[in-house]
């Protein structure tokens, strides 16, 4: 078939360099050369391997080495999964759960709100929210901690407003410096991150599906229950996984806010790098890192599964 169309085109087309190049472009993606096609992404993959994968693999190996002799040992890993370090993992996981599910739902609502907005001002609304998301998703550390200390610290602005209304949040068990407080602060970069990563999935939700559902008499909840929800769910879940990982990875913000009062794994790893280490435990930091890598690896398996599921409907 392809040959026939080529023959039909003007005879002598081979002499025209433009046409020849056009034909060569059209014929380029042949299965025969499939391996060669991967050449185009080799620089990218090599960069990832050198600056991301190799360092992580080195840590995994180091987690099983005696710091003095480099001999194989379980003792680092053993230390890392007991006592205060085990507690650190538990706290980190709880924090990451809170700081991924709530911002995930809220971020989805915001993304959907701006994506479906129509009429005057809709474009400006989208512009403001998306650009602000790009900026806030990268915000963190001491400046972010200060924002919340100034507003929700024990004698800060918003705390004052609320106690004027007769609501003393610190008497109600809230503290900016415990897990719930840190989770609230994390949402400041988690919600914008969710908006950014869920938007491409919303793009795939065809307006035509909604119209088809409405034409068949579906109410709004029925559309979400039987069409929109099932299509969006895998993407939503994979975005939640990213948020969970992002919360788990956060270091600077928690460090600035709590100065180590809550045991979080990322902060514990940081102390090993700062040099406050007992002799013989130099590689426990690597074992803790290994723990994080294992959690992330499990998450990424689910991420891939959800993404594959999402690809069924969303291009």
């Amino acid at each position, binding site marked *: 078939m392809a040959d026939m169309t080529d023959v039909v085109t003007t005879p002598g087309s081979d002499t025209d360099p433009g046409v020849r190049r056009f034909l060569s472009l059209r014929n380029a993606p042949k299965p025969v050369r499939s391996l060669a096609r991967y050449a185009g992404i080799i620089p990218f993959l090599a960069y990832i391997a050198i600056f991301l994968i190799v360092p992580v693999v080195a840590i995994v190996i180091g987690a099983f080495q005696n710091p003095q002799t480099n001999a194989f040992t379980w003792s680092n890993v053993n230390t890392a999964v007991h006592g205060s370090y085990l507690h650190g993992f538990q706290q980190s996981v709880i924090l990451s759960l809170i700081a991924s599910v709530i911002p995930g739902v809220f971020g989805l609502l915001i993304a959907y709100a701006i994506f479906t907005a129509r009429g005057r001002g809709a474009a400006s609304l989208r512009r403001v929210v998306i*650009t602000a998301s*790009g900026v806030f998703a990268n915000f963190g550390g001491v400046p972010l901690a200060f924002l919340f200390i100034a507003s929700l610290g024990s004698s800060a602005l918003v705390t004052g407003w609320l106690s004027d209304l007769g609501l003393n949040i610190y008497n109600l068990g809230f503290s900016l410096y415990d897990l719930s407080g840190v989770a609230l602060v994390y949402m400041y970069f988690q919600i914008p991150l969710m908006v950014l990563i869920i938007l491409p999935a919303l793009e795939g939700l065809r307006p035509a599906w909604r119209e088809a559902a409405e034409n068949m008499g579906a109410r709004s909840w029925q559309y979400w229950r039987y069409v929109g929800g099932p299509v969006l769910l895998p993407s939503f879940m994979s975005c939640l996984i990213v948020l969970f990982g992002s919360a788990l990875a956060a270091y600077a913000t928690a460090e600035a806010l709590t100065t180590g009062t809550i045991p979080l794994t990322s902060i514990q790893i940081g102390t090993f790098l700062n040099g406050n280490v007992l002799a013989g435990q130099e590689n426990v930091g690597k074992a803790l890192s290994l723990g994080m890598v294992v959690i992330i690896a499990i998450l990424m398996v689910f991420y891939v599964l959800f993404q594959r599921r999402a690809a069924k409907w969303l291009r």
Partner: protein
Amino acid sequence: MATLTPAAAGQVISPDNSKKRRGPQDRPAIWRWVILLIAGVYFVVPLYAALRFAGLSGFKDVFTTPGFGSSLWLSIRLAAVTWIVSMLLMIPTTVYVHLRMPGLRRLLEGVTILPIVIPPVVLIIGVLQVMPLALRASVWLLALEYVILAMPFAYRALDAGLRAIDVKTLTEAAGSLGAGWLSTMWRVILPNMRTAVTAATILIVALVLGEFTMASLDLKQTFPVWIVLFDQENAQISVAASIFALFVTWVFLMLITVIATRQSRRTGGGEVTLFTVAPQQTIGN
């Protein structure tokens, strides 16, 4: 011809649509405003509280404090190197994948999400262990790692930019006019990706100017590290400075989308957004 169609369709269909629907059109508007109001309060109030607490009086002192100039200069140089390496690496890769291997887009999306979930504190331990001493001693190691950290955002910005244009048709058209691969890239694809590239640039700069974890653990005094050291002496000023930096970044991002949309409208196109392709105006709800 092609540019006429979407505009015409938008004009014809959308007024028609709004006449037909009565009830459902109003209901979503309420939840939309409730959500956006809550978000607005959550994001704006802490900024207001911090600015009120910090004040802007001592703002000028920042510029004369020792270390300000050198740390900012270091961060700027790091941002420049990170930007160059990111662009050289990411633009050809994303264009290539779009053109030749669209099936790999999901893989790329998955790979570029890794830097978000792999803790920088873990990564820097490994980096300090495996990199050759010469590289570890130099500040440029940070820039090379920032390329990794910036990847999720850079990739998403570039990918959305490519999805918004018809790369395949453009490349084929350029090819049929006799353009080579390099010429197509430089004179056809890149000019069409201007918005996406600018957005990626700003995000990279914002990331490098704000990154604390790796820089501090690598014992390099970049601007964010200096701010924290400085913070212990005068918290107010350093916070005011970082809020100011946040605001400037946002204004720049707003400006590029506004300018790009205006240019796109002039040539008959639609709204330009970052990270996502704007929804079609034709059939909405």
